């Protein structure tokens, strides 16, 4: 098998095992076009607010007796550690733990039958804390990163990307104008595209905008108002990587318009410069521009789509143009149970014969308060030039506690 193809498969398998993000852009099905009511991050994802915790029970969780949903109040167990530890209103503490097992095998190509096999996986073990004092807000997420957490590492043995103390986010800022404007500085998820759970998708990896480890330090202004939301971030670089030449400087932004309560259209743009790109090891001007849509045609179905163009320029390779696309359906036949098929494609490496193609089928069950059981199955076909295409299958079973 071509060594490049092998590397690609290994990277894909590794990425599939690093899931720590938790965001639900499909909440547009409930009329939540804006994310800020439920998430500390004004653009969504990550730690829940008290309101978000309540909605996780009322709208997201599965209930054995549906009358609990129709007639009940939000469960007291929605609080921190299932409500066992009362917190003052100004303090929000939560945990995020994901663990499970990953199976990966090469299905087609010269080395069919090989692969990473089956292995246990701890994807995230984080604690998040937010302090709200009037307009002031401070937020930090720290934890243990078991594998492939390089960009988020704070302390590790000999600079390893595994077995490390990580901080995915840490920022301070203020909320103004009835909380419509949030200004902050620190390590922040890049404002770009859909911020969904499947952060290893091609649209996230090829644009380097996943919300797992690819946050960057910078200054940000986020706007959430009736019908509109958006964020602009000045990127100062990821100060958790070294040397400075690796750090990308530039800007990223998105804007989204809620055409209706259940249909939104957004656009994203990103441009960065690094003196030495961390992957290509050459000076690199990196751009990504695209659009995304969220639509809930019925209360049980949410469709999410994103298409991005990726444009790279380096003095060594000149221009490289590619792109990535993602189309996902999230069907919730009964509350708390999701069937989530998706397809994707993407290509930046100009040497590939065809774009990388992928198909996802995921099942998610929010079986208990603060608990999600999830199975992702992913098939991806990589087509390097001059060698046979390589198809790989990955299955990831996980338990997710958002405490």
């Amino acid at each position, binding site marked *: 098998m071509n060594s490049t193809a092998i590397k690609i498969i290994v990277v894909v398998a590794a990425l599939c095992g690093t899931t720590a993000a938790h965001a639900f852009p499909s909440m547009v099905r*409930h*009329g939540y*076009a*804006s994310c*800020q*009511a439920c998430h500390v991050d*004004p653009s969504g994802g990550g730690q829940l*607010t*008290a*309101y978000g*915790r*309540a909605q996780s029970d*009322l*709208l997201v969780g599965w209930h054995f007796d549906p009358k609990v*949903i*129709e*007639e*009940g*109040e*939000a469960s007291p167990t929605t609080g921190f550690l299932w409500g066992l530890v009362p917190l003052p*209103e100004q303090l929000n503490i939560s945990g995020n733990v994901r663990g499970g097992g990953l199976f990966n095998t090469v299905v087609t190509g010269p080395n069919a039958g090989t692969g990473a096999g089956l292995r246990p996986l701890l994807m995230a073990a984080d604690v998040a804390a937010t302090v709200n004092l009037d307009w002031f807000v401070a937020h930090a997420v720290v934890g243990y990163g078991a594998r492939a957490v390089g960009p988020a590492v704070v302390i590790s043995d000999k600079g390893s990307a595994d077995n490390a103390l990580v901080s995915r986010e840490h920022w301070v800022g203020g*909320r103004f104008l*009835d*909380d*419509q404007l949030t200004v902050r500085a620190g390590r922040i998820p890049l404002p770009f595209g859909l911020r969904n759970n499947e952060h290893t998708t091609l649209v996230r990896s090829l644009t380097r905008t996943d919300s797992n480890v690819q946050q960057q330090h910078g200054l940000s202004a986020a706007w*959430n*108002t*009736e*019908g*509109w*939301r958006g964020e602009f971030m000045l990127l100062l670089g990821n100060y958790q990587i070294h040397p400075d030449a690796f750090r990308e400087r530039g800007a990223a932004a998105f804007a989204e318009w*809620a055409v209706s*309560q259940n249909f939104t259209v957004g656009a994203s743009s990103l441009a960065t410069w690094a003196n030495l790109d961390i992957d290509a090891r050459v000076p690199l001007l990196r751009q990504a521009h695209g659009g995304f849509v969220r639509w809930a045609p019925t*209360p049980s179905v949410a469709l999410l789509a994103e298409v991005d163009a990726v444009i790279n320029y380096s003095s060594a390779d000149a221009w490289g143009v590619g792109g990535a696309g993602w189309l996902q359906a999230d069907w919730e036949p009964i509350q708390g149970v999701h069937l989530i098929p998706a397809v994707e494609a993407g290509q930046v490496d100009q040497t590939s014969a065809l774009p990388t193609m992928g198909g996802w089928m995921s099942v998610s069950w929010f079986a208990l308060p603060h608990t999600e059981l999830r199975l992702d199955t992913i098939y991806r076909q990589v087509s390097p030039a001059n060698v046979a295409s390589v198809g790989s299958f990955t299955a990831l079973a996980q338990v997710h506690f958002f405490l």
Partner: protein
Amino acid sequence: MKKLAVSLVLSGLFVSTVALAGWTKAGVGQATFSAIGTGGFKMEGKTPTVDVTDDGKVVTVVVGLTELVTGISLRDRHMRDKYLEVSKFPTTTLTVAIDALKIPAAAGAIEGDATGNMTLHGVTKPQPFHYKGVCKAEGVCDIEGTITLNMNDFGVVVPSYLGITVKPTVTIGTSFPVKRP
């Protein structure tokens, strides 16, 4: 969630419709309300129970609040029980003098502003509203109406739930067809 309270306002909308003396509803109408809150929060709701009476001088629109829905059952319940207190105030009404409405004698556009008396949550106050529509040759007019009101004016507690608070100003809209006598 309490924000639903806003829905009350909606009822007022229907008023604009009725504005046509001696006319009858010619189909299904719809009334909606929209409220916004902190941090870009938005809530929309609707109620299907609308009745209109016309004594030749005054049009009265009655909107039932017991079937008010916003898409989240707990929010609906909070709205009905805690904010609108539907058990005590099951309806909201708007009365408008027919003379206050600009109604074309034949086919054509309708548009204007008027003020009626709105009763919500047991409080009656003059309430301005805007209406517009198109009358067709066959005598059917498609009417839309909007009202912007302040919940505080009607003694409705502003909904607030776990840090998310709805702004007291709510927009209500309605659309429905009516037929000339």
